[in-house]
């Protein structure tokens, strides 16, 4: 009993630590003062109004989302093809490819960032959209490969052969039989890529065009230049993102959990 109370207490304290800043921000996004002052609270939607009328922030939000979707889509296509290729290749080819795939995963982001800066400045493409997209793809693609490969390993290898046996051409067999079976892996690779891209600061900072900003770079620079207190609308932006992400993650996982349960009870 004591053990249980201690357990719950520990969990509660850590959860408070994790969610207190988030809660503070969400609550004070409905307060229009420039700097959070816990001694007073003026309820208003002012910050939200300011946010949606701030075309700069709206542009940045748009930038962040399209960059994430573009990078994730390209990474998913490249990574899925790569995983299938690795899976069916001989060990001599598959092993080194898998090892190199681990480099961006293990490496410090700052090292990945400067390595790309060196490469793109050599070919005079430093700080272009190309370097930005490639930078994000370097971060995301290995994760796609690493989430698709296990699904390929789980697949009954004979199903591909069975499709050929029944008259499918190799590409038909791939699209009708292999891809549907590894689709959950592809999907989770895509989702992972989206979150990695949305989350990134360092690689973006080193590869983005000068005039381009994502939420991460904009907020960091605002803090750095001391302009963050002059745009309290950022609080509203953070609050919206927190709420949307928490809702999305909970929804997806609870639904997945339910499905699992249903499958188990059958």
């Amino acid at each position, binding site marked *: 009993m004591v053990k249980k109370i201690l357990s719950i207490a520990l969990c509660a304290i850590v959860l408070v630590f994790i969610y207190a800043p988030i809660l503070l921000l969400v609550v004070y996004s409905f307060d229009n003062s420039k700097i959070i002052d816990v001694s007073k609270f003026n309820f208003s939607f002012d910050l939200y109004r300011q946010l949606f009328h701030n075309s700069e922030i709206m542009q940045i939000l748009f930038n962040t989302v399209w960059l994430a979707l573009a990078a994730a889509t390209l990474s998913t296509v490249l990574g899925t093809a790569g995983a299938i290729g690795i899976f069916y290749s001989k060990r001599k080819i598959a092993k080194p490819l898998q090892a190199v795939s681990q480099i961006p995963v293990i490496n410090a982001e700052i*090292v990945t960032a400067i*390595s790309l800066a060196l490469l793109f400045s050599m070919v005079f493409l430093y700080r272009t959209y190309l370097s930005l997209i490639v930078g994000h*793809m370097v971060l995301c693609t290995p994760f796609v490969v690493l989430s698709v490969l296990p699904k390929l390993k789980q697949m009954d290898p004979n199903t591909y052969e069975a499709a050929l046996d029944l008259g499918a051409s190799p590409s038909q067999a791939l699209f009708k039989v292999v891809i549907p079976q590894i689709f959950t892996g592809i999907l989770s690779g895509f989702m992972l890529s989206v979150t990695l891209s949305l989350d990134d600061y360092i690689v973006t900072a080193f590869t983005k065009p000068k005039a381009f900003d994502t939420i991460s770079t904009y907020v960091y620079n605002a803090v750095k230049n001391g302009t963050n207190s002059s745009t309290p609308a950022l609080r509203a932006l953070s609050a919206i993102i927190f709420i949307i992400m928490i809702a999305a993650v909970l929804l997806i996982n609870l639904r997945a959990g339910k499905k699992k349960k249903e499958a188990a009870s059958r």
Partner: protein
Amino acid sequence: MIKVHFSRKQLCIPYALFLALFVVFPMLMILFYAFTDTVDGSITFTFANFINFFTSTAKLSTLLMSFTVAIISTAICLLIGYPIAYILARSKLRRRNVLLMLFIMPMWINFVLRINALRDLLDVINLLGTQNYLNTIIGMVYDFLPFMILPLYTTLEKLDNSYLEAASDLGGNKFTVFSKVTLPLSMPGVISGITMVFMPSMTNYVVSDTLGNFNITILGKLINEYFTTYDNWHMGSMISIILLVIIFLTLLATGGLKDSKTEARGANLW
């Protein structure tokens, strides 16, 4: 009719080229830059950057600082993360899946925004600007705790109950069962958690800048400064190489080379 010969193996060619061009080649460029210098527009081979790093007290103290921050942050993450993961994995709490979700949720939320929210909170309790080191460490723990909890949870959850039953059946008390069976069997999770937290704590300067009020310089920050402020890419590359060696040595020491980070990154949760 032209017959297109299709092979599944060939699908890895674009990916292989991508890795070669954007991963392997750039890393070789860092190596090249680290051991060269640009003098009057011509590039010469030199060990100067290497010697410079190890003779500069400023750089060495940055290295020491990064180590200290990383070790303390990792230790705190482990001390908080292990009991949490253990409770989540081994107790019979109802809805522990939802509970786990709550603990690792931050992984999916932009870390710059989260760190700024923490900055606001620290400001409210008057720590900001007064306790730069403490704030940096709090920030690192805040940012990386989920990456410690998840791998620990995964290993502990997979742990077969019959091992524990066997251990107590053979006369072990609760403490011996934990120290002789649970802990050793959860080492892979511990190792992967440590590698997930240690390296970013040495390099993620967004955390140290935002919470240390731009007064704390860690290794990642130093590399960034050599690239942006001082415009000395050769020195920046040398520091990167030194960082890579440290990463490699940590992985070697912990045996974490085999572990993939995908699991810890929550790939299986999406």
